């Protein structure tokens, strides 16, 4: 039999009819649909044993308690009274631009400075010791964490850090520009009592900050503010900038040594490390430990220290505005990767020491700033500090376990307040709005994906101010203060008070020295 082409067609036709009578076409359709639903390119969720780890947050000095829900030993969720940065703190280790490479050589020359951006840690003591070993200076940014208490301590002739605020019993918190309803002191000492109405907040601030808009009373003008404030005793006054004249008002209020006011606080049983004074332009190599990034790096202060041709070396877990200014960047562990410690939180009424256990099972980078510095010390034939950070933390834990300080009651009747400097007014006033730092990959929710916090390239101003400056939306504005200058893109916003410019900074600033400064601005 000769098989013709038609026969082949007949076989095929029979095949098709036969196939229609089998489950195959429908199974193929079904299976293809299921395959397309597999989404195999989406990462699967973790599987494994669920455990909890307890620790403390080290992103800022408040040291809030954390309970981490973990799957297969990796943290998946942080529970606790945590802020926007804290709830995603375990994701900072996964920053897409983590610093991983160690440069082959870092030229260390001339006088060394070590800038500690996370003071009051065991690491701080070690950095200070390393600075001594180099024959250099241990440096810090101006301490704004407990500005009012530091000013009062100075006025009363007491050691810095020896005062606390009995927030647990305060009825009225009068704040001169301090962000008391935002991330200030230990938020869990303020916010729950404020929420129930037990604590009233009187915010004295020229612009409507987040604290001002939520406060019980908002007063825009500092002059005679206290007379207009509705006070319920016990009341206490804090100032964002720590001006002695404002801090001293607590004495007149009778808040010193009283329940709900300023109280004596025991020091910790080890020496408090203070910043050295560095002569202007005396530092040739500046190391910056930015492993804890809660405070802004004030670049005008840094520039004042740097000699010409100075080398800047930054220790950071991931890229940031600060690493862009560095000549060399060295990798360090991210938050929650290693054992860390938190000393007495700002404004705390009692001395405390918290050891924060790591949440991640293994660090991506296991170095810290002191590891790099020790290597450099050894390479140059000098003697590095003998104790490691974990060892020092353990020693301090043991010291705290047996520490029973006696705290005397405070009393003072008058203090001598030095005449306050009159701030030069300017045609414009610049407000630096502090926004959450960009450590967690998810922080885009608050910036790019919602605009809740303004992006850093913008300057917001009232349309009247924009008109006066002759600029419109998206124009480039050159803003200058006594500290430095910056270029930003204009965004008119009627919510900003006329005569004010508002910019956002997240990690390093060219301008700030406190929240409000006189400024000049022009197109360009």
């Amino acid at each position, binding site marked *: 039999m000769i098989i013709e082409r038609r026969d082949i067609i007949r076989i095929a036709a029979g095949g098709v009819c036969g196939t229609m009578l089998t489950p195959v076409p429908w199974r193929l359709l079904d299976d293809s649909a299921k395959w397309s639903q597999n989404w195999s390119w989406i990462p699967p969720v973790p*599987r494994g044993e669920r455990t909890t780890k307890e620790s403390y947050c080290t992103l800022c000095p408040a040291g809030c308690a954390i309970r981490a829900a973990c799957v297969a030993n990796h943290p998946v969720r942080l529970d606790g009274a945590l802020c926007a940065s804290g709830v995603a703190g375990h994701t900072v280790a996964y920053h897409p631009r983590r610093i991983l490479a160690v440069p082959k050589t870092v030229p260390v020359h001339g006088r060394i400075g070590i800038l500690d951006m996370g003071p009051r840690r065991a690491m701080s003591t070690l950095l200070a010791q390393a600075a001594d070993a180099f024959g250099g200076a241990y440096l810090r940014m101006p301490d704004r964490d407990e500005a009012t208490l530091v000013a009062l301590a100075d006025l009363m002739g007491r050691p810095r850090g020896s005062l606390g605020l009995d927030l647990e019993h305060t009825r009225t918190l009068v704040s001169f520009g301090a962000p008391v309803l935002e991330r200030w002191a230990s938020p869990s000492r303020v916010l729950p009592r404020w929420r129930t109405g037990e604590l009233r907040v009187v915010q004295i601030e020229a612009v409507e900050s*987040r604290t001002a808009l939520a406060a019980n009373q908002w007063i825009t003008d500092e002059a005679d503010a206290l007379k207009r404030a509705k006070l319920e005793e016990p009341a206490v006054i804090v100032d964002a900038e720590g001006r002695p004249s404002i801090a001293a008002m607590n004495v007149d209020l009778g808040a010193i040594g009283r329940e709900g006011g300023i109280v004596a606080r025991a020091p910790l049983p080890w020496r408090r490390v203070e910043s050295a004074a560095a002569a202007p332009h005396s530092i040739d190599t500046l190391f910056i430990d930015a492993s804890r990034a809660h405070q802004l790096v004030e670049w005008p202060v840094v520039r004042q220290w740097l000699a010409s041709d100075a080398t800047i070396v930054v220790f950071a877990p991931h890229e940031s505005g600060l690493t862009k200014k560095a000549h060399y960047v060295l990798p360090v562990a991210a938050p929650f990767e290693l054992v860390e410690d938190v000393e007495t939180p700002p404004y705390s009424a009692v001395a405390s020491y918290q050891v924060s256990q790591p949440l991640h099972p293994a660090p991506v980078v296991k170095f810290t700033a002191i590891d790099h510095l020790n290597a450099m010390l050894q390479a140059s034939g000098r003697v590095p500090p003998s104790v490691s950070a974990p060892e020092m933390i353990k020693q301090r834990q043991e010291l705290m376990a047996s520490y029973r300080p006696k705290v005397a009651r405070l009393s003072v009747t008058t203090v001598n307040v030095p005449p306050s400097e009159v701030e030069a007014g300017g045609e414009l006033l610049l407000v630096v709005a502090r926004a959450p730092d960009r450590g967690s*990959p998810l922080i885009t929710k608050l910036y790019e*994906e919602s605009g809740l916090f303004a992006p850093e390239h913008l300057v917001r101003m009232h349309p009247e101010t924009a008109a006066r400056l002759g600029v419109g939306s998206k124009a480039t504005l050159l803003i200058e203060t006594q500290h430095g200058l910056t270029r930003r893109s204009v965004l008119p916003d009627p919510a900003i008070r006329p005569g004010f410019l508002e910019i956002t900074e997240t990690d390093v600033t060219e301008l700030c020295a406190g929240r409000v400064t006189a400024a000049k601005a022009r197109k360009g």
Partner: protein
Amino acid sequence: MYGMVIDLDRCTGCGACMMACAVENNVPPAHEGATPRTGITWMRVYRANNGAPFPENRTAFFPIMCQQCGDHTPCVSVCPQNAIETDAETGIVDQMPQRCLGCRYCMAACPYHARYFNWWDPEWPAGMEKSLNPEVSPRMRGVVEKCNFCSGRYHAAKLKAAAAGKREINPADYVPACVEACPTQAISFRDIDKEPPEPDSFQLLAKLETKSKVYFRSQRQWIRDLAEKGIGHA
């Protein structure tokens, strides 16, 4: 029926709720080029202004998520795929990304702009997939997603109750991420049949009669007025 009562006089616009929501629900970080229109924020805090000239100008923050509308759910009525269902027991408007074909009709229908489209496949930085929440299933590109009152936590509460042989969950076990994270406890989550919202509570765009289960409270009249009219994108 679960509902929320949000005290707008206690919201400081800190964004902790937004971050906690993203962590809980496996929402990926922004894709390159994402904007407030294309980003995914199941919970979004809007900045509202009373529009008055200085010195009466005032700002407030509105945390807005899916309002979990009641009978006349705009999104449920328009979905061609039946990918959305209002759960009879909890009242949660449940979005099924697996059934969604991405037509975005529901996004147009939603008066609260509370629905978000996955313009891109989710991408997490290397290693971050180990921190995903196993109780929530990630979505692919091309589907719509929105707040579901943290159903993953509801399931976990049910599981815990069932392990002890109970059918009713312990209310303390079911707390959505935003409620837990809010530092001022501005958001209250509860069974609003058992504990109705306070008499001075109001809904957003109440005249649309969506019978939403998210209520707001404020002593400020301009905020109450705004809730009737609606607020624009900041």
